[in-house]
């Protein structure tokens, strides 16, 4: 399967020639080796994965006879005399080896040949594709695009992919939305490890340093069964660069500055590799920004700082290897001061005012409200190739620490939310070639997770103490059914046991009938509160069934059905009270079962030197979709609050996206992207909330190869108004005026259009390295607009013009 060795024997003609050649070779042997009748059978296989190698030459030096392996890697020499021979085995893409052979009787020998590769990357490219799926179309984000966004966040760079948007809470907190779904429905895989970072929270951004990533793959609407079965929205797979298999030192230093936020960052990585396969690398990032600004005013308290580092060391041989990876992601970020609302009336006032009620001069201070997050990840991984395939083992540990500081009375500076989430997981994966045209992947994994909300906050726990035990099994089979059809089928089973301890308000416990439904959970009745010990088991099955039809080498059709099952997250199960940042009371439900998504997608992809076209259509039929709706108003001493409940209803989502790039003349390039997504409740066709509006992106660029590869481009982004939204508005009684006023949190803002400019230029440095300078201007015309997918849109507009300059040096 892998590498050049296969390609060389691919065409039928050469196979025929090979067979004839083998035949004659054997004839020759007959002529020379008389009076002896030993038979030598040899099979030459790829050392990496056991693939038979055709067209390998085997010479018996003493006899000066030559044999060439056939399509199955076999060659047979007959009528050899008993003797000791020296064999030389060679292949045009592999390093030659010699072996001695003591021949006394008939012998079968399997010879493993190592490819003569200067870089391991070539193998990795193939195995990368195998990591995921061959029948699911994957969108990739290259290192070049990541470089352009190195001062931004993961959520921002993911938006460059058609059909992916982001749900923001201000400028920095940005969560990826795939095909209209986000949070627990989008799984992030960082270096083979499923990120466990309280991702259920709509205002929690993924804890990944964009500068540590070399490549991102996005699978829409389906799980990558190796990692997860619950990706109802999709999977994002982030990977670091692969290490070269030679004696080398390479690395990069990037600095960037930006006008909006008046800050910047510096990032560096350094890798040392040895031809023996050993390597180590280091990567670190520092970022610091002050308040961001709209065209008209400063968004007070929106600065942030970020410190990240990662270390990796290991041994990378073709047939075995291991690595140790550690990363720390930590940030400290301000939340727009004016977005802190206590009551519905606060939000009415904010919407009426249009601009935030607190606007101060620009500052680098990060005051309350703010978040402080640190995420530690340690991974140990090893693999070895056996006859039956590649076996790998992985252990990882993650510790996610989240502190949220709120505006509090009494000079309390301690956090209002302090969660520590620890996750250990261990996994074994096997990748095996079934036969020449089919592969089997299978794996088993176990995970233990513990959430600890620190009680010293003096604030009711949003997410309770819980322990979670997961166990899963998966298997994926793929086969090259015919020349043009490639089929894949996979299934995964997940078991989860949740053991939580939670204090409920006794009044709520009774109001929701939990006293009758779950009396077994009660541990102790404390009057006002009741201590409970909810325990749940979830058994989930997920599967994938896909086909790829290759019309030609550059034209493919991907058809896929994927079933994903997601157990309810802790927020959906356990929420029970006032959520300050949204000024509403949110109530979960202990009786939820798993949500099951049936996603059907079809993708047409065609690419050649001049143009590329990708068209994707999907339908996602989700049973027991968990979402929140406002059901009532609830009076409290602080006034009347909307009362939102998580509900479980059937939903459906449809969408279509298109990407077309074309090169005109030699250096002129035009790109288009369009995406539309619709989501409804199935029972009454009521639109789902926060569905990304239709958007259209166009790009023109021109490159000047003679001018140090200068490239200039102009991007236009038009986002339509979201016309389909649920009307969750309600009337709020204003006691001071004895009137009712409409709290309009539903109506989306108007359409907007922004223009961005980007340019890059590269220079060669004298010592063989190179410099690259990027200049990017976002919101070129400094337009004032609001974004439907920004949760703080009631309080503020979006960022104004932002000029970003980055210089990177690669060595």
């Amino acid at each position, binding site marked *: 399967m892998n590498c050049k060795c296969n390609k060389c024997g691919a065409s039928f003609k050469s196979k025929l020639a090979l067979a004839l050649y083998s035949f004659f070779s054997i004839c020759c042997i007959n002529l020379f080796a008389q009076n002896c009748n030993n038979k030598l059978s040899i099979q030459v296989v790829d050392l990496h994965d056991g693939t038979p190698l055709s067209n390998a030459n085997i010479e018996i030096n003493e006899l000066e006879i030559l044999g060439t392996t056939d399509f199955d890697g076999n060659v047979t020499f007959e009528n050899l005399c008993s003797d000791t021979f020296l064999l030389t085995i060679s292949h045009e893409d592999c390093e030659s080896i010699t072996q001695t052979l003591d021949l006394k009787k008939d012998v079968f020998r399997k010879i493993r040949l190592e490819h003569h590769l200067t870089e391991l990357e070539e193998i990795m490219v193939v195995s990368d594709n195998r990591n995921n799926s061959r029948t699911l179309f994957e969108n990739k984000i290259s290192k070049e695009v990541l470089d352009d966004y190195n001062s931004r966040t993961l959520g921002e760079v993911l938006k460059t992919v058609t059909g992916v948007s982001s749900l923001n809470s201000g400028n920095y907190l940005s969560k990826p939305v795939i095909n209209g779904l986000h949070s627990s429905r989008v799984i992030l895989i960082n270096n083979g490890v499923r990120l466990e970072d309280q991702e259920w929270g709509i205002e929690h951004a993924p804890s990944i340093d964009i500068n540590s990533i070399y490549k991102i793959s996005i699978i829409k609407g389906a799980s990558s069964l190796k990692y997860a079965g619950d990706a109802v929205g999709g999977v994002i797979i982030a990977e670091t660069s692969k290490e070269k298999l030679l004696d080398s030192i390479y690395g990069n230093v990037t600095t960037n500055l930006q006008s909006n936020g008046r800050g910047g960052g510096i990032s560096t990585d350094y890798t040392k590799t040895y031809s023996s396969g050993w390597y180590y690398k280091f990567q670190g990032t520092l970022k610091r920004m002050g308040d961001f600004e709209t065209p008209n005013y400063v968004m007070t308290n929106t600065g942030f700082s970020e410190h990240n580092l990662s270390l990796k060391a290991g041994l990378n041989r073709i047939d*075995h290897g*291991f690595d140790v990876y550690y990363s720390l992601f930590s940030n400290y970020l301000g939340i727009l001061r004016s977005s*802190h*609302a*206590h*009551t519905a*009336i*606060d939000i009415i006032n904010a919407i009426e005012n249009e601009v935030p*009620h607190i606007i101060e001069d620009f500052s680098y201070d990060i005051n309350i409200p703010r978040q402080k997050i640190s995420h530690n990840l340690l991974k*140990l991984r*090893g*693999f*070895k190739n056996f006859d039956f395939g590649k*076996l*790998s*083992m992985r*252990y990882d*540990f993650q510790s996610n620490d989240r502190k949220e500081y709120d*505006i*509090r*009375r*009494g*000079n*309390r500076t301690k956090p209002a939310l302090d969660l520590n989430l620890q996750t*250990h997981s*261990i996994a074994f994966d096997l990748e095996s070639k079934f036969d020449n045209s089919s592969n089997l992947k299978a794996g088993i994994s176990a995970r*233990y997770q*513990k959430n600890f*909300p620190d*009680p010293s906050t*003096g*604030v*009711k*726990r949003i997410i*309770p103490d819980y322990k979670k035990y997961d166990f899963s099994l998966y298997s994926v089979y793929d086969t090259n059914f015919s020349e043009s059809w490639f089929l894949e089928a996979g299934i995964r089973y997940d078991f989860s046991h949740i053991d939580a*301890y939670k*204090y409920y*308000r*006794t*009044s*709520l416990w009774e*109001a929701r009938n939990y006293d009758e439904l779950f009396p077994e959970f009660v*541990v102790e009745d*404390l009057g*006002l509160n009741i*201590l409970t*010990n909810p325990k749940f088991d979830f058994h989930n099955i997920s599967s994938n069934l896909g086909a790829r039809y290759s019309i030609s080498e550059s034209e493919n059709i991907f058809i896929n059905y994927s079933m994903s099952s997601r157990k309810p997250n802790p927020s959906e199960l356990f929420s029970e*009270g*006032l959520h300050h940042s949204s000024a509403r009371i949110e109530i979960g439900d202990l009786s939820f079962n798993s949500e099951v998504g049936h996603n059907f997608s079809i993708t047409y992809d065609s690419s050649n030197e001049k143009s590329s076209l990708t068209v994707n259509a999907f339908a996602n039929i989700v049973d027991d979709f968990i979402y929140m709706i406002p059901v009532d108003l*609830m*009076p*409290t*001493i*602080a*006034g009347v*609050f909307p009362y939102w409940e998580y509900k479980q209803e059937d939903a459906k989502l449809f969408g279509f996206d298109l990407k077309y790039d074309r090169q005109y003349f030699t250096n002129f390039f035009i790109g288009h992207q369009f995406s539309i997504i619709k989501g409804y409740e199935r029972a009454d066709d009521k639109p789902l909330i926060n569905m990304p509006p239709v958007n259209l992106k166009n790009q023109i660029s021109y490159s000047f190869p003679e001018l140090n590869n200068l490239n200039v481009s102009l991007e236009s982004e038009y986002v339509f108004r979201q016309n389909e939204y649920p009307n969750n508005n309600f009337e709020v009684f204003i*006691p*001071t*005026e*004895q009137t009712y006023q409409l709290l309009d949190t539903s109506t989306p803002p108007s359409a907007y259009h922004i223009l961005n400019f980007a340019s890059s230029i590269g220079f060669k440095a004298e010592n063989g390295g190179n410099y690259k300078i990027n200049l990017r201007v976002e919101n070129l015309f400094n337009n004032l607009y609001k974004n439907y997918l920004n949760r703080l849109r009631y309080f503020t507009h979006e960022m104004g013009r932002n000029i970003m300059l980055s210089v990177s040096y690669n060595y």
Partner: protein
Amino acid sequence: MKIFKYALLAIPFLYFSCSDDDDAPEPINEEEVITTMTVTLVNHQNGSDVVTMQTQDLDGDGPNAPVITVSGPLTAGTSYAGSVQFLNEMEDPAEDITEEVQEEDDEHQVFFSAAGVGMEFVYMDFDGDGNPLGTQFVLAPLGAGSGSLTITLVHEPAKPNDGLDSAGGEIDIQTTFPVTVE
């Protein structure tokens, strides 16, 4: 077989993490909650004419609505010395939040308004900058009738301000009491 050695290395980590105790978490002392606001009005002319108004929401953001009580009617043509007390009765004994509000007088203000009946309000306590606080006040009913009295405690309002609508900040308490003036 290297990987198996590494697999073995990882196992102690797993045991290490699994071996924690099974004790139930401690209850949280909910510190900043205000469950109760009591307004005491004492007639300047007649010390025995005391009207108390109270809102009490013992389950906080739980589903039970606050219980609002008013002890009796106000007398027209007189004036009352008013005081507001805030309590957190989730704690035992109840914590008097009024002290906290008075200590952070520059970050708080109590706002008064009446509807349906005429009333005048005068602030009697002020923060260090001379801006009103409102835990002490004078209330003067202007004429007989029935209507409502709304009392609002705002955290971090703009100070000075022209009233509740322009003060910004966050509402900690807002309660409307039915009132009768005789």
